[in-house]
């Protein structure tokens, strides 16, 4: 604890008291004057509408979403991996279990392997239709680097987990232990720092290939 703490709190209280005395600031006890504004952009619970919107958003961001049946997921992921000549990836156990594809990728999750991998196979916990966002809840034991270090991301997502709006994605966090981190990923890494020209794969993945399992 630094010596600054008490000094800062004292000057905050001093300033707020002065502000209250002068009528700048509201009384300390006054409840917030909030209004219910419609922050929700999308309130559509029709499963097909959500899927179409989610796919559309990611395609607009330059990434791909394949809508597949659960029975086809192994074959689809394998075919994609062959086509891209993927050799040395890293994977989450849950994604391997769901897709049944353990060739070409390992469960090793040390930094060196993560940075050297040519791709990652991961399972997203939720998707957000409004923005095309993938939600990763970092329960204990889950790698944070796996979704950022490898340049190509094969992301498996259950269509039944699609949420309409970011408001819903924030509501879910009430049930997550505050000490657990959550990552929202909306498209591939990008920069426009040089002459305003959009370049993908600035530091993170250049491409997301999403395999959306139609499970409901």
């Amino acid at each position: 604890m630094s010596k600054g703490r008490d000094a800062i709190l004292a000057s905050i209280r001093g300033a707020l008291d002065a502000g209250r005395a002068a009528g700048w600031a509201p009384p300390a006890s006054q409840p917030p004057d909030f209004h219910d504004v419609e922050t929700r952009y999308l309130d559509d619970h029709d499963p097909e509408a959500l899927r179409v919107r989610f796919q559309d958003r990611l395609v607009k961001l330059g990434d791909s979403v394949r809508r597949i049946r659960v029975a086809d997921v192994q074959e689809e992921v394998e075919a994609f991996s062959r086509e891209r000549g993927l050799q040395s990836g890293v994977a989450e156990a849950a994604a391997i279990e769901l897709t049944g594809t353990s060739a070409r990728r390992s469960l090793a999750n040390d930094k060196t392997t993560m940075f050297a991998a040519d791709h990652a196979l991961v399972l997203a916990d939720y998707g957000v239709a409004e923005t095309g966002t993938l939600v990763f809840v970092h329960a204990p034991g889950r790698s944070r680097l796996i979704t950022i270090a490898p340049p190509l991301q094969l992301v498996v997502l259950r269509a039944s987990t699609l949420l309409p709006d970011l408001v819903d994605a924030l509501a879910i966090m009430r049930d997550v232990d505050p000490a657990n981190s959550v990552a929202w990923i909306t498209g591939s890494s990008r920069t426009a720092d040089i002459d305003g020209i959009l370049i993908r794969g600035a530091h993170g993945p250049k491409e997301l290939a999403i395999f959306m399992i139609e499970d409901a």
Partner: protein
Amino acid sequence: MKQSKRVGVVDVEAIGIGKSESSRASVRSASEKKVVSRAMALEAEVENSADLRLEAAARRQHVIDHLDEYLLAAEKSMTDNGIQVHWAADQEEAQQLVVKLCHDAGVKRIAKSKSMVSEEIHLNGALEAAGMEVVETDLGEFVVQLDNDHPSHIVTPIIHKSRKDVAATFAREGISEYNEDPEALTMAARRHLRSVFMSADCGITGANFIVAETGRLVTVSNEGNLRLTSNTPRLHIAMTGIEKIVATEADLALLLKLLARSATGQSLTVYTQFLGGPRASGDPDGPDAMHVILLDNGRTNLLGGRYREMLRCIRCGACLNVCPVYRAVTGHGYGSVYPGPMGAIFSPLLGGEESRRKYAYLPKASSLCGACEEVCPVAIPIPKMLVALREESMRMHMPGPGGTPPWAPWSMLATSPGIWKVALESGRAIGWGPARIAPVAAFQRWLQHHDLPAWPRQSFRSWWKKRDAEGDS
């Protein structure tokens, strides 16, 4: 350091023959593009954007008006999550804190992701002086650091540089062969910085928000360097201003939607991270220790007075992009860490009496057109505050940089028609205004980032006479 050509007392390169013209043009076109994408993202996509802005303002202001309570709640939540919380009253205390944390952990190399607060307290210099290597990892900041330059925009730091400038920098520094292709340049930086992430012992980032209820740090980034910086090294230090607290995660729906749309016209930034704490046992990665530094540095001076609404600012940069003055003088023209309309208020008010004097001229750098207030996602009445600051600086007798200008020569010129004419004609003949060649240090410093208009070939009077003589009608 860059070499300058000097003619007498005049730094020819600094007065910007050729170079600054192109830099201003890139700032102007980039700003205009961003204004269009913001309008498309906000006004076309979000029906009630005006209501949203007012509500966002109300929620930010509520926290600021009860800042002591929310800070204590945030501190408790973060501590419960295993995050170590520190408070820094000013620049000196903040620098010492970071240096000590790094020193105690035996840090040699630091990966840094863009943080305006770290710019505000001039952190890099302090860390380097303590013998540590600091590498900026945001692409724009990386270039700025290689060039020994300063960022000219709070969201897009190298808005003033072209691809040619970046190519030359990378070639000079051995990052890559000279290549003007933005893709090749970006990939070269990616390759170079990956080794930095792997070898750094510490990552330093900012934080866009801290949630009081859960103690999570919220960070946004498009490149992803922030995620690598905060999760690869064994130590993570996040620094932010004391005003960046939000009450609950539910408030973020509003703020994140407005932030991304206002900053870049995206509906959401690519990476939004809610950092709950350091790695837990069994986690394969994440930092072993996580520290948050809450910086005051003059923010409490704003709290109780007429500038308290400024603390709502979420650093989106929308007010810079629309500002006619920002577009004309670029970020460097302000001579302060925070440029543009928000900078014209923060720069004199943050950091105490010295800043107040040093930046007393900034609130005057505005036409008071009101565009900044119109686009502000948290509805800050910027023009009103600029006027208030001007008024106060007059009352406090704060002259511009370099002291009160020497008015005596001017008054002699302006009150003697004969001398006035001769001066005008000779100025026209050599094409330089007195300010350009005046051996006054303040003028010359000013000219490093500003241009004076070119002299017209003839005066209006002589043009009028000639026109009459030629019988045009």
